[in-house]
């Protein structure tokens, strides 16, 4: 006999869910800001740095992109204490999320910078722009505009991936759903609720990125910059 869905059983746990959502949002926000900043630096170094640095960045990017997030998380949380580095769960989670996003974003930003044609740089020079002006107006901003949709997607993927950090007991949204399920055995309802909230978060994040893009890049994201 199938049991009926009863969402009212979730009502007493509104506090846990709200706290979970807040944690998911805060961790994602920090990982996004730090990740994109770090990626911009690493992408520049990967194109202009000394050979050793380039190789190191490449190794880091490949290592992160070719292993699952959950294994990276377990390595940081369970593995590093063996070396004497003990981390609180939420710190380990934040490091794993930031590391993960940085690796993907480095690759994305690098592709954007590489896509700026040589002619653009030459034109900037002819027009008398300084090196700094050229880098900012001719390379970085058009590059960011081009890769903005990919960057948005990647940040959303990291937010969705953060569901996994419930496995090391970080009290975020998935943890809240697990908590409810363990109390009233309403697994299905709890996970449906969490799933819908994640969906709302990813839609909200996309809108937020769109607004931020208009504000900082001038509303032409994802189109060729020529």
């Amino acid at each position, binding site marked *: *006999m*199938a*049991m009926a*869905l009863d969402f009212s059983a979730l009502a007493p746990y509104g506090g846990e869910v709200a706290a979970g959502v807040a944690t998911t949002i805060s961790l994602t926000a920090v990982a996004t800001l730090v990740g994109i900043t770090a990626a911009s630096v690493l992408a520049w170094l990967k194109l202009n740095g000394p050979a050793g640095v380039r190789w190191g960045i490449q190794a880091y990017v*490949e*290592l992160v*992109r*070719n*292993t*699952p*997030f*959950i*294994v*990276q998380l*377990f*390595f940081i949380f*369970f*593995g*590093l*204490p*063996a*070396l004497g580095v003990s981390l609180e769960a939420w710190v380990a989670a934040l490091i794993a999320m930031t590391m993960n996003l940085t690796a993907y974003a480095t690759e994305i930003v690098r*592709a954007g910078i590489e*896509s700026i044609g040589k002619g653009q740089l030459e034109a900037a020079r002819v027009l008398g722009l300084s090196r700094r002006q050229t880098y900012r107006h001719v390379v970085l901003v058009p590059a960011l505009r*081009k890769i903005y949709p990919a960057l948005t997607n990647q940040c*959303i993927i990291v937010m*969705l*991936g*953060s*569901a*996994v950090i*419930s*496995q090391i007991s970080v009290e975020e949204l*998935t943890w809240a*759903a697990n908590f409810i*399920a363990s109390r009233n055995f309403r*697994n*299905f309802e709890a*996970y*449906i609720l*969490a*799933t819908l909230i*994640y*969906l709302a978060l*990813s*839609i909200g994040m996309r809108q937020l990125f769109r607004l931020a893009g208009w504000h900082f890049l001038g509303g032409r994201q994802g189109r*060729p910059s020529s």
Partner: protein
Amino acid sequence: MMDFTLWDIVRNLLLSMRWTVVLSLIAFIGGGVVALLLTVIRLSPSRWVQWPVMAYVELFQGTPLLMQLFLAFFGLGALGIQVSAWTAATLALVLFTSAFLTDIWQGCIRAIPPGQWQGARVLGLGRLQTLHHVILPQALRLAIAPTVGFSVQVVKGTALASIIGFVELTRTGTMLNNATFKPFLIFALVALGYFLLCYPLSLYARHLEKKLNVTGSR
């Protein structure tokens, strides 16, 4: 307590990698079949047919794979259908994969310039003929590299099946860690296992991208 030598650990991890590979293959092939169906359906000119496919893609791309696994595992249970971790993991991963592949393939079809459709029409080709002889051969070429690239995400996605109790590489690593308390070594080896599976796929995808010359800026 039983003692594990390094070889015991490595052997157990290698053996469990089989299940990661099997699950990945099922998810990728099953997801590919579903995606093919959805892509064909999505080609229909009717909005009422297109819309549900778009909603399906949006739903699976906008929610965590972990939630999809939980819903498949506990949800079907709540509906009175008892499922094993195998069934739930397979179901969730097939649906997850199909949504992403549908999106990729649909994008490839849309990337074919409208002039191709118009040209075929002028030549007197019907809609299906145009698809078959003009659009799909070109779209297929565009689709190969991103499809291979996405297979890496599928392999990594199977790691989440460990959370609902499916014994594959990650789960075996967790169990070995509980028995040996060597987390640094074991999770490094688990990561290495995934790297050995995924890196060749990544390299192959990049090679195809270069060979077929279909990267972002041309």
